[in-house]
């Protein structure tokens, strides 16, 4: 797919000037951390559950082939088919072929990041299929011709007025007044999509998890759209990543207990559905055909490397919601389907480092992402790992490489290093001003970092340097 992450800086700057996006992000910064921590504090033993969640993901990844084959055999026994795709293009071709086999014209979808990743809608549209997203957020951005700006709340950047305008443009109805109220928009979307649901030939969903023990594809939503997508059309196709499999229902339970709490601060989402194959002979309703497409697309290359840890990710979005960079610039700035800390680690693996090298660099490495991750992924370490590789592969700017070389040279000359650092610390103290409680803070610097100082300040260096203090402590 067409990924333009190279101009991250430019898009980040544009995002900072978008009032709707900034309001949504500010709401997220204020609300999400408290919601999440309250929901997790209600658990009897959050730390133990997190350890267990990590363990269950590591176990499944360590024996991925075994569990995928077990899952496949259960799906087959239930009358479904499993397809394997090495690349996004291969997956797109498989899904298009299945639609053709079903004689389909109309396709409905529930939100799936993997189908975004492989650009499935474009593939199907190119074959003349009419594809409609049914998750309300996805539906809104589909009408606007945009990509998701958050992995769970894809229309985070769209204002209510813009939603109203999109509906007025696309829904053919006679109106007496403009559409301005959220309740009316919801009713209208529900009515419009009901007709689409009933007319669809194929339903495509992702899967939050696959359970090897029972062959279940697990769908988690709050709207209930995935359940209709998986029930009404004659064919249901699940498109998901090979890493989504877990061994047992117990593992699923552990991860479900953490997923919605980490994501939205709720104990569970409204709907958690285990799908086991097509309609049975005794049933009057439900899809007659059931397919699962397992997509690799760069994932297997991470196995057995230190980067394997990102495959534990359950897409809860906690790392986005707590990231000072994501919550300042939003998802579109990343230019990749996946954004925030998990996106900055995953995008280079899927799209290659050449176009994504700026993403791992777009982090302060403050560590909040790792602290809130329900499966304890060491995101800062993985970001540093990609940075190193980007530098070695020459995907960084010449100015950046020059400054790193200068730093390296300086660090190798201790006397000079101490002198320069002392000079810098002295300079910073000189431009600092008195603040509260006898502290000194730096409010601006001549010529540099104007953007930074427009919204925040810096503490002035106090006392001696670390090295000086260390020497003083030696006996």
């Amino acid at each position: 797919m067409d990924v333009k992450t190279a101009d991250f800086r430019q898009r980040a700057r544009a995002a900072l000037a978008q009032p709707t996006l900034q309001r949504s992000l500010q709401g997220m910064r204020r609300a999400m951390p408290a919601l999440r921590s309250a929901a997790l504090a209600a658990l009897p033993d959050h730390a133990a559950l997190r350890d267990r969640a990590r363990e269950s993901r590591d176990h499944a990844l360590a024996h991925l082939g075994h569990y995928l084959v077990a899952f496949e055999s259960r799906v087959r026994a239930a009358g479904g088919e499993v397809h394997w795709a090495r690349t996004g293009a291969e997956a797109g071709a498989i899904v298009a072929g299945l639609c053709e086999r079903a004689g389909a014209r109309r396709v409905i979808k529930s939100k799936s990041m993997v189908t975004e990743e492989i650009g499935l809608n474009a593939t199907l549209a190119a074959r003349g299929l009419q594809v409609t997203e049914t998750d309300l957020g996805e539906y809104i951005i589909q009408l606007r011709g945009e990509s998701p700006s958050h992995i769970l709340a894809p229309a985070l950047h769209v204002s209510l007025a813009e939603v109203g305008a999109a509906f007025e443009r696309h829904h053919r109805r006679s109106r007496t007044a403009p559409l301005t109220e959220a309740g009316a928009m919801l009713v209208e979307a529900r009515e419009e999509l009901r007709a689409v649901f009933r007319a669809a030939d194929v339903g495509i969903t992702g899967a939050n998890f696959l359970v090897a023990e029972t062959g279940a594809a697990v769908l988690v939503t709050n709207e209930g759209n995935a359940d209709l997508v998986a029930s009404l059309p004659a064919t249901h196709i699940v498109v998901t990543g090979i890493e989504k499999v877990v061994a047992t229902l117990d593992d699923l339970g552990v991860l479900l207990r953490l997923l919605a709490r980490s994501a939205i601060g709720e104990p569970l989402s409204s709907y958690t559905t285990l799908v086991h194959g097509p309609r049975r002979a005794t049933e009057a309703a439900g899809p007659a055909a059931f397919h699962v497409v397992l997509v690799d697309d760069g994932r297997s290359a991470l196995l057995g490397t230190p980067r394997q840890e990102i495959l534990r990710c359950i897409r809860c979005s906690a790392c986005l919601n707590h990231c000072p960079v994501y919550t300042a610039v939003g998802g579109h700035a990343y230019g990749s389907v996946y954004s925030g800390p998990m996106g900055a680690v995953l995008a280079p693996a899927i799209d290659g480092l050449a176009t994504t090298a700026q993403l791992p660099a777009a982090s302060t490495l403050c560590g909040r992402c790792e602290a809130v991750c329900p499966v304890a992924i060491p995101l800062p370490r993985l970001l540093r790992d990609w940075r190193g590789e980007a530098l070695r592969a020459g995907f960084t700017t010449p100015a950046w490489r020059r400054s790193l070389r200068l730093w390296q040279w300086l660090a190798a000359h201790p006397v000079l290093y101490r002198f320069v650092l002392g000079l810098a610390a002295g300079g910073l103290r000189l431009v600092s001003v008195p603040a509260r409680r006898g502290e000194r803070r730096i409010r601006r610097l001549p010529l540099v970092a104007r953007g930074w100082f427009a919204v925040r300040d810096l503490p002035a260096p106090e006392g001696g340097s670390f090295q000086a203090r260390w020497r003083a402590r030696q006996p």
Partner: protein
Amino acid sequence: MSGAREAILARIGRDTPPAPSANVPVESAPADWAQRAQRFAACATAASATVATADSPQAAAAGIADYLERQGLPPRVHVSAATPALDGLVTETRLQLATGGLPDDGATVVTGCLAALAGEGVVVLATGPGHAAESVFLSATHIVVVSPGQLLDSLDALWGLVRTLPAPLPRMVNLILGPSRTADLGVPSRLGAHGPLRVHVVLVAPVEGA
């Protein structure tokens, strides 16, 4: 593209793993029905469902008729996933029952369930000859009647129950916590995005001394 399967499996390996961890940090819920019902009600109402108790299936049916009157909803109900807990419906003269086919948009559906989970406030339905999942998801109001023995502790107890179901497993096992909602039109979340706008759960109490 059968080559893809072999190619992927060759990359990721297929060794037989040791048994997965059985260590599950179980959340224990009270064994006593009344306390469990209380826990269930607290969790379900926190997710915008409403919860009532009834002493018998007949009382449950009368309670449903009262509920529809209070909500100003028509007395016509679509019945699906019938269990003995729904036995009172046929004798409740204030209700008009419809079975078979799918409910219209805006309809009320009354269902039994496979289980209800006290620790989560969740009701669990399974598809089968007597129940299509869409009869719940297309309706505007979903009323669930839970038999006394169906009120389980938590998710862990549900997995235990699923393991005892005869093969093949139900096509769909639906865990439902409160009404359908969306946060895509801003905060606070709005109810009734695609699925039901109202979820009302009636817990039938065990017979005294039974």
